[in-house]
């Protein structure tokens, strides 16, 4: 266990998770509150033969990890608000070309330069719809360092499994806060490695032909199979095509490979949820306050529980519906103007019993902020 217990920032926990997952390549551009991720990787990656590069901007960073991933390297970038906006075109390119990669967005207040040093969860919808065109995406989040670590490992795993960019939606509070992390032993957490084609040199390899299980074995650039990669709609060889059938099938494949696997992708935690009459649905640093409130009210006999979401996209609609089915009321606790609220309302049977407990002023939402609203809903006055 020597050196395995650390007292560090959430951003460093993300770095530890990335290293555990086998990151080989990082490209980034500094931006608060994500910068520590790149600073630590600048030191740590070359220690093990990995590569780090500070690019000229976030667009270039996103492009560089795409190029690196194609050569078979596990690749990641990290950013925040304005930088996340800049990356969107290339994120769409990675969706279209099915290139595994991880994008950490340590959220700060927006729009624009917004509130660089304060917490927000305003990028939930941008993570889903930031790039143009129909597509699907995976986004994970976490409320404490142990989970930041685990979700970072999961982000790399899911990127490889589904050949897709995965967004790690952290936030300023979790990113900058210091707390304990116990780094798991090797082998304790599952690591998904790149699925490579078993086809030999002279066999026609189809980079975009899914196997029966839906996965697409890859071949490294520089390896034995030469193929074309393009952001245009393309056939199974990667050649551009405007054949309506090819377009239709590719777009459906890009969406279905994720939307048909919501259950497998869903990550969540329950806190005191079993007989809860009032359910707080939350995620990221907001969930810390929700959990705190639920536990303290439990001690006084109130039936309050928390459903903590750790995967936000694809949204776990079925899970939310099922877990909230017996609730008298559901409070969505988040630091934006209701981005997950809209999803929860769409999921449950009684959307008029879903309320928003939020803060959008750069301050971390507190248990008493949530309690005030809860009191009103419970009809107990403030």
């Amino acid at each position: 266990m020597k050196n395995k217990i650390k007292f560090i920032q959430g951003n460093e926990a993300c770095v530890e998770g990335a290293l555990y997952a086998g990151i080989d390549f990082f490209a980034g551009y500094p931006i608060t509150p994500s910068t520590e991720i790149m600073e630590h990787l600048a030191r740590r990656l070359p220690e093990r033969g990995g590569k780090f590069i500070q690019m000229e901007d976030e667009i270039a960073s996103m492009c560089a990890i795409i190029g690196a991933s194609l050569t078979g390297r596990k690749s990641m970038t990290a950013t925040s608000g304005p930088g996340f906006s800049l990356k969107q075109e290339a994120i769409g390119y990675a969706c279209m070309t099915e290139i595994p990669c991880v994008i950490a967005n340590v959220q700060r207040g927006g729009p624009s330069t917004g509130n660089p040093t304060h917490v927000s969860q305003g990028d939930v919808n941008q993570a889903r719809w930031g790039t143009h065109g129909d597509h699907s995406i995976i986004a994970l989040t976490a409320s404490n360092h142990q989970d930041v670590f685990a979700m970072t490992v999961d982000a790399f795993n899911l990127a490889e499994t589904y050949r897709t960019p995965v967004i790690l939606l952290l936030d300023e509070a979790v990113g900058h806060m210091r707390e304990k992390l116990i780094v798991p032993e090797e082998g304790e957490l599952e690591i998904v490695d790149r699925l490579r084609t078993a086809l030999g040199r002279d066999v026609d390899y189809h980079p975009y032909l899914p196997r029966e299980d839906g996965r697409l074995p890859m071949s490294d650039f520089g390896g034995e199979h030469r193929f074309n990669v393009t952001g245009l709609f393309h056939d199974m060889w990667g050649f551009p095509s405007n054949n309506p059938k090819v377009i239709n099938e590719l777009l459906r494949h890009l969406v279905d490979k994720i939307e048909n696997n919501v259950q497998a992708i869903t990550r969540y935690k329950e806190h005191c949820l079993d007989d809860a009459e009032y359910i707080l649905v939350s995620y990221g640093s907001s969930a810390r306050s929700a959990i705190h409130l639920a536990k303290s009210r439990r001690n006084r006999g109130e039936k309050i529980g928390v459903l903590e979401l750790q995967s936000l996209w694809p949204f776990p609609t079925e899970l939310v519906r099922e877990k909230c089915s017996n609730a008298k009321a559901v409070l969505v606790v988040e630091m934006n103007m209701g981005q997950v609220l809209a999803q929860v309302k769409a999921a449950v049977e009684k959307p008029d019993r879903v309320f928003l407990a939020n803060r959008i002023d750069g301050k971390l939402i507190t248990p008493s902020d949530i309690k005030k609203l809860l009191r009103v809903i419970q009809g107990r006055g403030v």
Partner: protein
Amino acid sequence: MAIQDYLRQRYFPHMWCPGCGHGTILNSLLRAIEELEIEKNDLVITSGIGCSARISGYVDFHSLHTMHGRALPCATGVKLSRPHLNVIVPMGDGDALAIGGNHFIHAARRNIDITAIVMNNRIYGMTGGQFSPLSGPGVNATTAPYKTIDNSFDTVKLAIAAGASFVARSTAYHAQESTDILKKAIQHKGFSVVEILSQCPTHYGRKNKEGDAASMLEFHKKNTARIGSKALEKNPDLTPRGIFVDVDTPEYCAEYEKIIAVASKEKM
């Protein structure tokens, strides 16, 4: 190997207009690769978006057709992760120096071992004839109905100032010269920039009284001269061709290997 062996027959016919200079440049490039006897599997061609960028799909190498302006950062990721690969990046003038201008100067500054080819037809061909940062003033374009007032970059001077360690210029008329220069550029360890003047008869020639492809090729011949030639001495207004810079300066991937050596020693 014959030239056809480097082409993906499946992908033909190509999309270029008759008389487009881009096909000639592809020819020069493939001859250079052939003469250097580069293994197909050791070559990655990365391009952005434009008529020029379509080159990547036509050739039987590892090919990466990316986003408008973003070929160089994508290529940087490929090269830094697998430094043994040859990475060639053909770009249009808009691709390289408008939307991709920032990436261009920074790739040059790093001196990363990539061969950048600027296929300069002084126009946005693919989108139908808007002016580019290499059109210069006084040009007719669909977005300059009263002629352009924008000054142009000098690709060669820009590349040199930004730190490229190999900088050259040729034209689609001078196909053999282009091949010779490209061979040197590919062999050079560091960031190489080869500007090759191309022609877009469809959107530039017609509108700017340079006529059809044949007369545009004539134009390349008449308006350029080799560095050190009598012609250039007599008429300094001609556009110089040849190799302007070819120096040995530290290359990015090689320098990074030194970082790995230091960092992994410190770790132990």
